[in-house]
C-alpha cells in the first residue's frame, strides 16, 4: 500500500515514476528502516521537514544501504508534486539539501528545457555539500559540482539519469536563447585581458632568443626533409614532417609487405610454369635443357630461400598467369607423377630426383596453402600425394586437440588450482606494493 505511486500520478518518461529508480535499489529503499518509519504518509509539504533534516547526498553506502536522500527522492517520485512546488524547492536559498533534492528530482522527471532553465542558475551556488560514498565515508563537494554532475554524467547517486538533450540542439530549435552565460564570464574576460598584456611583454623578450635557435633548427629540418627525397612538399616543418615521415615509412613498409606476398605468389606460379614449359616444350633438347634447367632451378630455389630479391620486383606476374589454374594444377600433377616414376634413365632419374627434392621442398608449403585456397583442384591433388595425408592431418589434429584439451584443462584448473599461474613472486609483489605506496613484504 505504502509503496504504490499516487493514483493521480502521471507517467514520466513513459513509465511509472517510481521506476525511474532501478528495481534493485527501489526494493532496498522500500525495505529500509528510514522509509518505513519516517517516509510513511508524507505529503509535498511534510517532506520539506524531512528534507531539512538531511545532512548528506548520496546513493548507496556500506552494505548497499540507501541514503535518506535517496529515500526522499523515491518518496517525491511516489507523490509526484507539481512543477511549481518543485521549482520552489529548487529556488529556496535556506536549505541546501532541499535544493539538492529538488534538483535531483527535476533532473529525473523534467523535460530538457526545464532542466536547463532551472538547474543552470544553480551553478552560482557554491555551498558545500556532504556526499556519502559507497564505502560509507563522507566526502565534501560543492553544489555547483553536484549540478554539473547532474547535467553531464550518466549516473548520479546510484541512479541512471534519463537522457538529456544537448544544449546546442535546444538552442537551435529556439527553446533556449543562446549559449550559457556563465556568471564568471565577466571576471574571466578581465582576467584574459590582463594575461594577454602580461604575456605579450614577456613573449617579446623570449621570441628574439628563441628565433636564433629556431632558425638553425629550421634549416636542419628542411635539409632533412629534402633528403627523404620522395619529392613531397613539406608545408609545415617539425610536427607534420615527423608525421609524414612516419606515414611514408609505414606506407613503404606496407608496400614492401604486399610486394613480398605478390612476389611469393608470382614466384610460385612462375616456377610451375617454368617446370611445365621446360618439360613439355623442351623435352627434345634434353642436354641443353639440363644445363639450362639446373641453373634455373638453382637460381629459383635460391631466390626463394634467400627471401625476396630485387630482381623479382619487376617481373610482371600477369605474364605467368597464361594458363588456367586448373590446367596448371593438372599439368603439375602430371609432372609430379612423371617425376616420381622410377622407370627412367638414370640420367633422368638423377635429374628428376634432384628436381624432386627441390620441388618437394618448396612445393609443400604452397601445397598446404592451396589446399585451403582452391577447392576445385583438390580432387586431383588428393589422389597424388607424396606424403601421407593421415600423418599430415594427424599433425594438425593433434595440435588442435592438444590446444583444445589444454585450454579445457586450464579452465578446469583455473577454478581449482590454476591460481599458480596468477601468483606473483616476492620481488614483483614488492615492486607492486611500492608502486601502490605500501610497505614491502615482511618475510
Amino acid at each position, binding site marked *: 500500500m505504502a509503496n504504490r505511486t499516487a493514483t493521480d500520478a502521471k507517467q514520466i518518461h513513459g513509465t511509472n515514476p517510481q521506476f525511474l529508480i532501478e528495481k534493485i535499489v527501489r526494493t532496498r529503499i522500500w525495505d529500509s528502516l528510514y522509509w518505513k518509519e519516517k517516509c510513511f504518509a508524507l505529503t509535498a509539504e511534510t517532506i520539506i521537514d524531512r528534507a531539512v533534516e538531511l545532512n548528506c547526498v548520496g546513493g548507496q553506502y556500506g*552494505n548497499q544501504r540507501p541514503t535518506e536522500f535517496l529515500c526522499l527522492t523515491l518518496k517525491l517520485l511516489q507523490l509526484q508534486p507539481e512543477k511549481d512546488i518543485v521549482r520552489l524547492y529548487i529556488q529556496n536559498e535556506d536549505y541546501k539539501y532541499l535544493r539538492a533534492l529538488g534538483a535531483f528530482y527535476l533532473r529525473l522527471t523534467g523535460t530538457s528545457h526545464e532542466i536547463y532553465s532551472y538547474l543552470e542558475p544553480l551553478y552560482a551556488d557554491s555551498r558545500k555539500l556532504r556526499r556519502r560514498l*559507497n*564505502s560509507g565515508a563522507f566526502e565534501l563537494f560543492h553544489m555547483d559540482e553536484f549540478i554539473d554532475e547532474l547535467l553531464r554524467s550518466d549516473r548520479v547517486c546510484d541512479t541512471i539519469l534519463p537522457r538529456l538533450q544537448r544544449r546546442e540542439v535546444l538552442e537551435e530549435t529556439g527553446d533556449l536563447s543562446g549559449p550559457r552565460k556563465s556568471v564568471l564570464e565577466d571576471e574571466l574576460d578581465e582576467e584574459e585581458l590582463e594575461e594577454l598584456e602580461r604575456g605579450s611583454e614577456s613573449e617579446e623578450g623570449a621570441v628574439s632568443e628563441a628565433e636564433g635557435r629556431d632558425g638553425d633548427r629550421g634549416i636542419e629540418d628542411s635539409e632533412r626533409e629534402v633528403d627523404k627525397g620522395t619529392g613531397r612538399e613539406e608545408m609545415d616543418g617539425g610536427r607534420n614532417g615527423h608525421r609524414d615521415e612516419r606515414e611514408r615509412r609505414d606506407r613503404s613498409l606496407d608496400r614492401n609487405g604486399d610486394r613480398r606476398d605478390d612476389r611469393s605468389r608470382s614466384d610460385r606460379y612462375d616456377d610451375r610454369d617454368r617446370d611445365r614449359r621446360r618439360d613439355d616444350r623442351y623435352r627434345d633438347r634434353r642436354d641443353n635443357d639440363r644445363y639450362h634447367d639446373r641453373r634455373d632451378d638453382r637460381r629459383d630455389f635460391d631466390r626463394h630461400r634467400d627471401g625476396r630479391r630485387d630482381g623479382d620486383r619487376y617481373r610482371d606476374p600477369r605474364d605467368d598467369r597464361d594458363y588456367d589454374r586448373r590446367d596448371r594444377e593438372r599439368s603439375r600433377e602430371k609432372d609430379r607423377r612423371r617425376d616420381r616414376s622410377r622407370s627412367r634413365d638414370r640420367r633422368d632419374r638423377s635429374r628428376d630426383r634432384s628436381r624432386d627434392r627441390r620441388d618437394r621442398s618448396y612445393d609443400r608449403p604452397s601445397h598446404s596453402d592451396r589446399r585451403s585456397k582452391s577447392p576445385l583442384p583438390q580432387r586431383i591433388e588428393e589422389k597424388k600425394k607424396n606424403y601421407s595425408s593421415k600423418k599430415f592431418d594427424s599433425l594438425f589434429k593433434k595440435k588442435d586437440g592438444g590446444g583444445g584439451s589444454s585450454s579445457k584443462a586450464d*579452465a578446469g584448473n*583455473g*577454478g581449482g588450482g*590454476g*591460481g*599458480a599461474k*596468477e*601468483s*606473483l613472486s*616476492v620481488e614483483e*609483489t614488492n615492486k*607492486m*606494493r611500492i*608502486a*601502490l605506496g*605500501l*610497505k614491502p*613484504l*615482511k*618475510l
Partner: protein
Amino acid sequence: MIEVICNDRLGKKVRVKCNPDDTVKDLKLLIAAQTGTKPEKIVLKKWYTIYKDHITLEDYEIHDGMNLE
C-alpha cells in the same frame, strides 16, 4: 608474509602476497593491481561476512592460504 587466495567465482583466481598487518583496503589494492578491477569495486567476503576496509588482516584472523571471495 602470507598468501591469500581470492576467487571471484567467475574464473578469476589470484594469489596475493601480503603482510598480516595490511588492512583490507591494502589487500584490495593489491588484488586490483593483479586482476584489473577497480579497488573500489572489490567486495571481499567470507560467506556473508563482508570485510571492512579499515581493519587489518591480522584482526580478521586471515591466515596464510585462506580463500576469500
